[in-house]
């Protein structure tokens, strides 16, 4: 338990360095939603996340952890964005999932502390215009950039009620900071640049409940419900607004016909429309309800050491909550592939997930991204 607390403190300490992916679909609203999944779940399309104690999707899954585990993951995002103003390749790095979890000795409980990305609002937009100043045409370069987003700090506990039933409760603190910078530069060096910086800070509290049920030796179901309440928004320490956050629910089914093979499918829905009125009041475009469907498989090559060199495949489709232009809800679909390695008698592990994502608003805003996620886990 002391080790758990120590690692929990460490995860808290590293919270400020959380960064997230940068996408033009993260410009609006609260940013692009992030999936609080471990590399293992990501490589299976997210379908096994509700059963995965290293993901932060279902607090009930924490009950299935039998060994203290800490996980640190980093992801590198290579993307190409296209919109009516041009195309641009970019890359960015983030640390999407940090988890410390373990069983509470002698009890049927498991405890987990995790820090996950909730939404990402890191972007830089560049525009060039020409204005008349003092009777002369001067080219003006405007750059609007934002760094940061929302993070989800979760404290969860799972209870192994019976061999076939696990339930769990999670408490969530949603915090974050957007450092927004507006810059203006001129082609005429007689004009100094103008700069404007704003810090938007967020704080919200939420809770989640979940359960996993083993219906049959090879079939399990999982479900979770989450309510994130509302988000208080401060601009440079001055409260400016409150944004309602969505409720969400998800269900997942898992089929394990053999020790080596797992197939899972999941469905999730988030009522982002709860945020719409607050976002519109702030001058935004709005927010739409979203859903996500995913499916994936995991093929184990070594049943004695199951997480050593497994093969994971998956795919998902999701709608995104914040339209770039009114009336055009963007969506995302992706395929994923991954594996993992265990060494030092399973105490150390590395999991790798490679995702190929396509995003579009159905018209002129499109994006293609390759996301490589690497997770390093330790089981002392």
């Amino acid at each position: 338990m002391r080790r758990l607390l120590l690692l929990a403190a460490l995860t808290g300490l590293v919270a400020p360095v959380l960064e997230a992916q940068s996408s033009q679909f993260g410009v609006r609203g609260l940013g692009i939603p992030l999936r609080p999944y471990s590399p293992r779940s990501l490589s299976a399309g997210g379908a096994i996340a509700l059963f995965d104690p290293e993901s932060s999707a279902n607090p009930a899954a924490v009950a299935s952890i039998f060994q203290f585990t800490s996980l640190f993951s980093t992801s590198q995002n290579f993307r190409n964005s296209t919109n009516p103003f041009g195309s641009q390749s970019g890359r960015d790095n983030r640390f999407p999932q940090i988890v410390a979890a373990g069983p509470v000795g002698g009890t049927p409980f498991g405890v987990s502390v995790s820090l996950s990305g909730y939404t990402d609002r890191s972007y830089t937009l560049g525009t060039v215009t020409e204005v008349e100043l003092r009777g002369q045409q001067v080219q003006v370069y405007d750059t609007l950039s934002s760094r940061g987003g929302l993070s989800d700090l979760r404290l969860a506990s799972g209870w192994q009620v019976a061999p076939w039933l696990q339930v769990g409760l999670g408490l969530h603190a949603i915090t974050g900071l957007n450092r927004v910078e507006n810059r203006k530069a001129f082609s005429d060096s007689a004009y100094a640049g103008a700069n404007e910086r704003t810090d938007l800070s967020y704080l919200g509290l939420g809770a989640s409940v979940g359960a996993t049920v083993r219906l049959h030796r090879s079939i399990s179901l999982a479900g979770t419900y989450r309510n994130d309440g509302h988000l208080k928004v401060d601009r440079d320490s001055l409260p400016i607004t409150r944004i309602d956050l969505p409720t969400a629910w998800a269900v997942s089914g898992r089929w394990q016909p053999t020790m080596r093979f797992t197939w899972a499918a999941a469905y999730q829905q988030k009522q982002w429309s709860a945020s719409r009125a607050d976002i519109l009041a702030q001058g935004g475009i709005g927010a739409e309800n979203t859903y996500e469907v995913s499916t994936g498989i995991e093929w184990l090559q070594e049943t004695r050491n199951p997480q050593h060199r497994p093969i994971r495949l998956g795919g998902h489709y999701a709608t995104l909550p914040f339209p770039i232009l009114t009336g055009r809800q963007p969506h995302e679909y992706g395929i994923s592939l991954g594996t993992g390695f265990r060494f030092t008698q399973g105490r150390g592990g590395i999991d790798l997930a490679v995702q190929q994502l396509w995003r579009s608003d159905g018209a002129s805003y499109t994006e293609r991204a390759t996301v490589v996620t690497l997770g390093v886990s330790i089981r002392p």
Partner: protein
Amino acid sequence: MKRGIIAAVGLLALALAGCQDRITTPGTCPDLCPGDPIIIRDTTILPIVGGDSTFFGYADRSDRLGLLVSDGLDVGEYRAFISFPIVREDSIAVDNIMTKLEVDSAAVTFQLQSRDTTATGLTLYLHRFPLGAADTTISFDSLQTLLANTPIVDSIVVPDTLKSGRIGAYLTGDDIDKVRTSAADSGRVAFGIRVRASKPTGVRLGVDNLGSTNAPTFEFRGRVEVADTSKLRQSALVRPADIATFGYVGTLDRSIDADPDLLYLGGPATGRGLIRFAIPPGIRDSAEIVRATLELTPALPFSGLPNNLFGDSVSVRGVIADLGAKSPTLNQGSLVWAGRMHEGTTTPVSIEITVLAKEWQQPGGPPPALFITHLEEVYGGGFMQPVFFSTRSPTGGPRLRITYGLPTNPGRP
């Protein structure tokens, strides 16, 4: 096992190698921007009416780093004088031993600091003055009379290609007697200086009461009889001993009977203009100044020494505190700006003071007031004595043009 570790290290290295962000996306506002670009505005701010004045007397003779000498310039006539302290010509110390000096030449040298490079045939004339005939109280007419009635020792022909550098008169043979001093003069020697060229012109010669290399020199050169052959040639050299022994006098001093409704800069009385502004709170507190330009309109055509670097410039300095004439100035080099005055014109002068205007916005920053000075004030004065309209003038008063950005609080959802 080993392969697993190698693979793990490799993957980690790959992940860390890619940790550089490049996240710019093309876009335009308002289509894609969750916030408006910074709004740019341009405005003109007039000084506080009656808050601008001319003050004189910022440099005295001890601040002079140059002797002005001219001939036929519109800005006035200037003549100079200089005397050197005692110099022995009979002996000189070599290795701390007084040794007999066999004088074979004498030299009077000056540091030419500035000239009109388009004036050809520039020649300086050295007149031998009686000791005590010229001092700091002498008038221009008296100095001119002295020059007319005293013999020319020598002339210094300045090469047309020389913009600045050391120039001198070198005397040999019987000409050395022209600079020898009588016993009654105690070995001291004095000269008057005037100048001529193919057209009206002027020069500034370096002087320095600290005796630096910019100072004029007078020397006797000759041979000594010593064993060390590298020390056979020696010279006995002196520089002006104090500020009372050199000076210049001109015919124009605009500080005399100055119009209080105009702003005077430079000249023998070192005029400065103090201008005060009231920056609107909306700009001072909320805007980001991207360009601030002080515009001054001359009341008289600019007249000085043509093609004189720095001589045609007006500079601006902020003040630490507004104490009127005695306001201490911000002296950092980065807080001094210059604007060019075009010789023979009344073209308004524009001076970029963006950095100073930004300083005015700082909490506890300097007050929105500034001194305008002639850039050659640092030499103790120059030929040009610019005159500008003030806020009390019917037209053409100073004005401050400010281009600024207004925040838009970007980052809306």
